[in-house]
C-alpha cells in the first residue's frame, strides 16, 4: 500500500518545491513565470553537482544556487530597474532553459546516468520530508512571524510597508532569490532522483503546472500544498499507468492529463467566482517617491 502511495506521489517534491518557490516570490509581489526554464537550468546544475562531487545533496545545492542566480537576475531587472515582470519572465525562461540545455552537453558526458537515489524512510525519500517540512515552515512564517507579515504587506501594499519601516526592495529580493532557488532545486531533484538523467523535454510543462498551482491554491501555503498533492498525483498516476501499459487513451493524451486538469480546474474556480487571493501589488514594480 505504502509503495503505491509513494510511487503516485513520486513527483510531489518536484511540483511542491517549484510551486512553493512560486508562492514565496509572488506573495512578495513579483511574478516569476520563468519557472519552466529555471527548472531546466536547475536540472542541468543538479546533474553537474552530482557529477563533480558524487553526492546527491551537492546536486540539490547546485540546483538551488542556479535557481537563486536567476532569482537575483529577476530581482535586479524587475525590482531595481522596474522592467515589466511578464516580459522579463519570458526572457529569463528562454535564457534559463537555453543555458540548461546548452551547458549540459558541454559539462557532462552525453549519456550520463545517476546510479543512486536519495535514501528512503517509511517508503518516502528524504526530499519528500524536506518538502513537507518546508511547507510547514512556510505556513508558520506566513501566519505567525514578523517576516511573514513583511512579505504579505510588501505584496499587498508596498507603500504601507515602506511607512512601517519595511525595506520592500530587500523583502522582494530575498523572496525572489529563495523562491527561484527552490524552483532550481525542484529541477535538480527531478534530474538526479526521479529521472536519473537528462533529456531536452524533461520538464514537460511541470513548471507551468507549478505556476498554475499557486493560482489554484489562492496564494495560501495550505492551498498550494493541496494543489501540489493533487497535481503530482495526477502526474504520478499517469506515469504509473503508462509504465503498466494500461492505456485507456493514446499515450500522447495520457501525458497531457495534468495539463488538461489545470485548464479545467482554473476554469471551474473562475466560473464559481471564488476569490483569487492575488496580492494586490503583484506585478506592479514599487517606486519610492
Amino acid at each position, binding site marked *: 500500500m505504502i509503495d503505491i502511495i509513494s510511487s503516485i506521489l513520486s513527483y510531489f517534491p518536484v511540483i511542491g518545491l517549484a510551486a512553493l518557490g512560486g508562492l514565496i516570490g509572488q506573495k512578495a509581489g513579483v511574478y516569476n513565470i520563468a519557472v519552466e526554464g529555471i527548472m531546466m537550468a536547475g536540472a542541468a546544475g543538479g546533474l553537474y553537482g552530482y557529477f563533480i562531487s558524487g553526492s546527491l545533496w551537492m546536486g540539490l545545492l547546485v540546483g538551488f544556487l542556479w535557481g537563486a542566480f536567476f532569482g537575483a537576475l529577476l530581482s535586479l531587472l524587475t525590482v531595481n530597474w522596474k522592467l515589466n515582470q511578464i516580459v522579463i519572465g519570458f526572457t529569463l525562461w528562454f535564457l534559463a532553459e537555453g543555458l540548461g540545455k546548452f551547458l549540459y552537453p558541454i559539462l557532462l558526458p552525453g549519456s550520463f546516468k545517476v546510479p543512486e537515489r536519495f535514501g528512503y524512510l517509511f517508503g518516502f525519500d528524504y526530499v519528500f520530508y524536506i518538502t513537507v517540512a518546508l511547507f510547514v515552515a512556510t505556513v508558520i512564517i506566513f501566519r505567525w512571524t514578523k517576516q511573514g507579515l513583511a512579505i504579505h504587506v510588501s505584496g499587498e501594499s508596498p507603500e504601507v510597508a515602506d511607512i512601517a519601516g519595511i525595506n520592500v526592495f530587500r523583502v522582494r529580493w530575498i523572496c525572489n532569490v529563495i523562491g527561484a532557488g527552490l524552483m532550481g532545486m525542484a529541477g535538480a531533484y527531478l534530474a538526479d532522483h526521479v529521472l536519473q538523467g537528462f533529456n531536452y523535454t524533461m520538464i514537460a*510543462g511541470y513548471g507551468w503546472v507549478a505556476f498554475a498551482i499557486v493560482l489554484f491554491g489562492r496564494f495560501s501555503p495550505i492551498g498550494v500544498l493541496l494543489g501540489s498533492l493533487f497535481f503530482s498525483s495526477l502526474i504520478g498516476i499517469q506515469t504509473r499507468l503508462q509504465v503498466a501499459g494500461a492505456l485507456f487513451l493514446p499515450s500522447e493524451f495520457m501525458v497531457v492529463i495534468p495539463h*488538461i486538469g489545470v*485548464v479545467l480546474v482554473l476554469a471551474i474556480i473562475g466560473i464559481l467566482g471564488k476569490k483569487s487571493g492575488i496580492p494586490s501589488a503583484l506585478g506592479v514594480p514599487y517606486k519610492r517617491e
Partner: protein
Amino acid sequence: MKLKLEVQKSQLTMGLLNVVAIIGAVVVVIAISSTISGVSLEKSFSTFLKYTVGSSSGILYVLKRTTPLILASLGLAIAFKSGFWNIGAEGQIAIGAITTTGVCLFLGLPDLVAVVLAFILSFVIAGLYSGVSGFLKVKWDVNDIVVTMMMNFIALALFHYLISGPWFWQQSGAVGLYSRTAPIPEGMRFPFISPPLSSAFIMALAFIFIVYFLMKKSVLGYQLRVVGDNITAAVCQGINVKRIFTLGAILSGGLCGLAGMSLVLGEFFRMQAGITGNYGFFAIPIAIFCRNEPLLVPFGSFLVAIIIEGTLSLTTLGMPSALSEVLLGILFLVVFFPELVGWVKKRRKKA
C-alpha cells in the same frame, strides 16, 4: 494613404541602439561558444554568414523561416496590444497545420476549393482555440498565461497523436519509420517564388499591411487598443469589452493558425514531427521587441530568423543545438539595454 510608424524619434534611436546591441551580443555569444567547442572563430563566423545573409540561397532560407514568424508575431502583437497574454501561439500553429492537412488530404475537394477552405478553416479553428482562453480570461478572470500555455501542450499532443496514429502514412518500399502524413497534392501547394522560398511569404507580407490597417485605421483596432490600455475608459466609451477582447483573441489565434497553414502548404507539404519549430515561442519576444507595431514585425522576424538559421548551421560544426535559445534569451535581455541607459541617465540627473 501614407503609412505612419507610431514611434518617436527617441524611440527610433533606442531601436537603433537595440540593433547594435543585438549584433554585439550575437558576436560575443558565438565567439564564446566556439571557443568552448574548440572551433576557430573565423570558421564559425564564416559559416554563420554563409548560411544566413552572406549568400543568395542563405537569404532565401532565412526568408522562408521569416514567413511563419511574421504571421505568428502579428497575431501576438494584436493579442498583447489588447491586453491578452497569448503564449499559446505554438499550439495555435499546430492547430492550423492540423486543420490545413485535414482539409487538403481527406476531404477530396478540387485544389482551389481545398486551399480556400483550408485558409478559412485554419484561421477560424485556431482562432476559436485561442478565443476560448480569451473568453475565460475576460468573463471569469481565468489566468490567460497559464491557460494558453496549457493549450499548447494539448494541441501538440493532438498533433503527435495524428501523425503517429490515424493520419500516419508509410511510403511504399521506404525503410524506417517517420511520423508523418501523406504529402499534400501538388496543385494545393503554394507555388515557389524561388525554391525554397514559397509564395506563402507574400501572404505573410500582405498580412503585415492588413494588420496595420486593422489596428491603426479601423474602429475595431481602436477599440482593441483602448481595451488593452484602460478597461475603465473602454467601459465608459460604451465598448463591449467582453466581445472586443474575445474577438481580439480570435484574430490573434487565427493569424497563428495561418502560420501553421503556411508551414504545411508552403514549406513541408505534409504534417511531420517538429514542423511547428518553436516558432510560436520565438514569436512572443518578437512581438514584445517590436513593441506590437505591425510595421516593425517583419524586421524583428527577419533578425530572429537569421539567428535560428545561423545557429542551426553552427550545430554542424559541433556546437550544442540549444545555442539558439541561449542567444535569443540574451538577445531579449539586450533589448532592454536602451531602457537601462535611460534609467542610468535619469539616475545621474537626480544625483
